[in-house]
């Protein structure tokens, strides 16, 4: 348990370093996408290990996933309009 938590902490710190380093390169839009991807991985690590999603019931996982699905609805359909005007 202690080992896992500290490992997660280490990975999170490394990913933070990676994000900062990537931002110093001129990657344009890809830079943002990469940064968001890393943020997603970090969020997933926190959710799975620190928030115990690993051991949670299906119901709890559903609740955690629902908001993401609904944000996807919001973004997908709004951007369907913004991008095709």
């Amino acid at each position: 348990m202690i080992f896992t938590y500290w490992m997660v902490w280490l990975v999170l710190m490394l990913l933070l370093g990676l994000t900062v380093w990537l931002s110093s390169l001129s990657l344009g839009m890809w830079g943002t996408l990469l940064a968001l991807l890393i943020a997603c991985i970090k969020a997933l690590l926190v959710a799975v290990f620190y928030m115990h999603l690993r051991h949670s019931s299906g119901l709890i996982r559903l609740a955690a996933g629902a908001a993401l699905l609904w944000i996807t609805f919001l973004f997908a359909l709004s951007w369907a309009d913004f991008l095709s005007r």
Partner: protein
Amino acid sequence: MSYLTGPPSLRAWLFTRDHKRIAWLYLITISVFFAIGGLAATLMRIELATPAGDLVQADIYNRLFTLHGTVMVWLFLIPAIPNTLGNFLLPMMIGARDVAFPRLNLLSWYVFSAGGLLVLWSLLAGGVDTGWTFYTPYSSTYTNSHVILMAAGIFVTGFSSIFTGLNFMVTIHKMRAPGMTWFRMPLFCWSMYATSLIMVLATPVLACTLVLIAAERLFGVGIFDPALGGDPLLFQHLFWFYSHPAVYIMILPGMGVISEIVPCFAGRPIFGYSYVAVCSMAIAILGFLVWGHHMFVSGQSIYAGLIFSFLSFLVSVPSGVKVFNWTASLYKASIRLETPMLYALGFVGLFTIGGLTGLFLATLAVDVHLHDTYFVVAHFHFIMVGGMLMAYLGGLHFWWPKMTGRLYNESLGKVSALLIFLGFNLTFMPQFLLGYLGMPRRYHSYPPEFQIYNVLSSAGATFLAVGYLLPLVYLTWSLFRGQRAEENPWGAHSGLEWATASPPPTHNFREPPRLEGQEWGAAPLLSSVRL
């Protein structure tokens, strides 16, 4: 010892954690708001009886319809069934002693009242003239009415919605009595669950939209106003992402009530229980994907319009399935036309018309003509008033003996149900024609050729007003003089609430109920209850 005969002091009521007492707090509060919204509607209908704007000035009229919309949507329709009947019945129906978080439940009422007071304050300060939809940039830059105050009120009210939704979801998941499986739950509970899902996931988006409006007004930040670099359609997307599902917050509970009343007075189990249950969930989820049908003429892209139109047709199907199942539940029935059943049948008829006229508005080309006309006004009043309000009144009559332990005057009940049904049709049927003829909504004066239908509509509104006042009188009367009700006065055969005393004891059941036997649909539920 019933929940009513507990400590009678005001303090005991204001600090109660009993879901049944909180239901009463809500019932009284929303009745006040209904009266305020109804008064505004009355003034509007009088003004519209003549083409010229003679009773009130344009500015006042605009404030009236904004007040009517805001109060009716957020302070009446949204909390009406979930927070009164839902609060009262949901724990009982699943065999629980209370909701999962009773303190949160009470907090929800305080938050709601505080939000309502803010809205009233904005009214006293001079009102708001943007319409309940707060379209930008008018609301964010141009109007000089009290938008921020009213937005703050709605923002605060939103929390009560979220609290209630959260509470109900957890209650349904975790508080069911032993043996109360999902497919044994009364259909009212299913509709409450679907409603709660929308409340929890949609309301926060409204909150952030209102904050953005306030920010644009206060700091001149260019979020929505093109003159400042913003996009007015962003507002419409955010607003309708909440407000379209909010329509289902209003109608789903009504469907739940009807699904209880119809089988009771048909004397048989409902037809297609599992389909009705699943349709509630389908409506709640699909309802999130169709908001763009409010924006077909707004300058939204044609392609987005196509997607939203397509999805809108899909969401109409589960509503249709429900209507078919209610109708089929009358087959081989033994039908008693008591007051709640009259409301329920009225609901089915009016909701059918309201739902089907929605198809006109989901049809892209037809919506180009009908958008923002009286056709739209008629359509959503058929859903909101013809559907939701009929269901609310039906449910109130149905469960009145349970809530109060008293019976109301049945013949007065029938008279007012008929009066409301006829008055409603006279008020809103002509508006469909007005809309197709092209009369735009939110007009305080209009060309004289539209007058005849407006006169009919105003006349109908008069009947409607009388129809709403009657129940207030005889229900209040029954509180003091009504005949005592027994445990199950209607001979209902489903729902645990009928298996406890009228009015119920504080913890609902003397002993926790336990359910055995077959799943719902095959056999009436009450026969499998072991108390």
